[in-house]
């Protein structure tokens, strides 16, 4: 009996996580449009619902009812797998986010490694989608996306390692406990900066959105997609965005730690601030060129993160933690 219960619980959690990502995508698309509108001195969508609040809901209904187009020469298996493999890791990332001390789906001992490892599977999805579309724009977009992801993964991981060294644990809940007095952004400011910038690159946002640069590649790897599959890419993008923001909150901003209000409120509030930061940057800065992007990763961020790591280790040795 308990066997069925355990398995059922896991299944339920999956459903919850997936729904969460769906809701987040809905909200964030609207948020993004509103934020960009404010930055560009516009008002954004206003017609559907009060202040356009129902705009994205309407969009989703539209997307779900659209015809599912598949190019004639597309590889049928890979074309279907691509969006799924892109979206699933984003959903999986939510498993280890501790929204409040008890509010975490699975309190893994290796939560941090999990968070670093699972989004890596996205790359497979992107490559498949790009390749399966049988279209040069998609193909280039897929290659660029994965090259970029792999390149920025290294400095990002190294930045996270400093946090792990300081906390002495890979467990997300332990990280929260370790930051009860001082959030790590004060102790490891450089790590935070590296993490934020590389994360922007990992989730393919401006100024790092080369893979889907519309002026060069139409829409990158999802050029040929439409309807529900296309919305899966959007879910993946915004799900990953929120997961990254949540981990920034967890690793550097003290997570749900805060006075008076319950932990959940603090956590969501902080992570929304980070999300807003990502959007702000996206609508303010121009994008890099592909070669600049790679050079930045290998010649700036990799050495910088190594130096940061050594510095952090030396300081920790000196202080004796």
């Amino acid at each position, binding site marked *: 009996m308990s*066997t069925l219960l355990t398995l059922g619980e896991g299944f339920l959690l999956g459903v919850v996580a997936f729904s969460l990502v769906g809701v987040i995508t809905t909200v964030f698309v609207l948020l993004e449009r509103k934020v960009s509108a404010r930055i560009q001195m516009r008002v954004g969508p206003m017609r559907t619902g009060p202040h356009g609040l129902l705009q994205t809901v309407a969009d989703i209904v539209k997307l779900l009812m659209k015809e599912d187009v598949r190019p004639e020469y597309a590889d049928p298996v890979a074309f279907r797998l691509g969006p799924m493999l892109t979206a699933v890791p984003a959903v999986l990332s939510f498993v280890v986010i501790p929204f409040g001390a008890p509010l975490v789906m699975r309190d893994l001992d290796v939560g941090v490694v999990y968070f670093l490892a699972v989004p*890596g599977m996205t790359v*497979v999805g992107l*490559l498949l989608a790009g390749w399966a579309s049988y279209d040069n724009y998609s*193909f280039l977009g897929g290659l660029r996306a994965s090259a970029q992801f792999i390149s920025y993964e290294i400095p990002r991981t190294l930045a996270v390692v400093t946090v792990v060294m300081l906390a002495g644990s890979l467990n997300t809940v332990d990280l929260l406990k370790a930051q009860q007095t001082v959030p790590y952004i004060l102790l490891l400011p450089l790590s935070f900066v590296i993490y934020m910038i590389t994360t922007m690159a990992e989730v393919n946002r401006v100024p790092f959105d080369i893979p889907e640069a519309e002026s060069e590649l139409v829409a990158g790897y999802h050029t040929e997609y439409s309807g529900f599959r296309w919305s899966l890419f959007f879910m993946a993008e915004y799900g990953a965005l929120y997961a990254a923001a949540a981990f920034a909150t967890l690793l550097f901003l003290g997570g749900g730690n805060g006075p008076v209000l319950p932990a959940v409120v603090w956590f969501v509030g902080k992570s929304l601030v980070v999300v807003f930061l990502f959007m702000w940057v996206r609508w303010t800065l121009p994008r890099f060129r592909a070669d600049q992007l790679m050079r930045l990763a290998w010649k700036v961020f990799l050495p910088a993160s190594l130096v940061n790591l050594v510095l952090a280790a030396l300081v920790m040795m000196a202080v004796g933690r």
Partner: protein
Amino acid sequence: MTASDVLFVVFGVIAAGCALYGVLTRFLLRSIVALGAFLTAVAGEFYLLAADFVAMVQIFVYVGGIVVLMLFALMLSTSGERQPLAGSDRRGFSSLLAYALGGMLVWASIGAKLPAVPGGLPSSVPYLGRALLGEQLFAFEFLGVILLAAVVAALSLVRSERL
């Protein structure tokens, strides 16, 4: 039958099935994707065997690294060519060998007198950390050297002829 037993069987079936499909399919891309699924399933088995860190490393390195690398190689080497490959050949002789080897391994596994599984550890991570930076430090450092050598070797192999 506990939940982990069920999961073990599920992962095992997925792993074996994906491995078989990856070996048999005539489409290179599907073979690599099947490998990815196989690796993920094996990572699941690792997790069930109380090796959660190894499971994560497996996903990190294998799925996020090696499979992607293979896809890159595929796309860089045969991007224009989407025809199915020649399938497997020499099946008779090869399956004979494979059956012999596999049968022997399975037979040895069934016959082995194994001790009972000891009680679980609270968490493998601290022990693993101590082992990697203590007893096994040499292996750990040596792995770094090997990886560096591999990077250099790979670069020198694929660089174009001009220096």
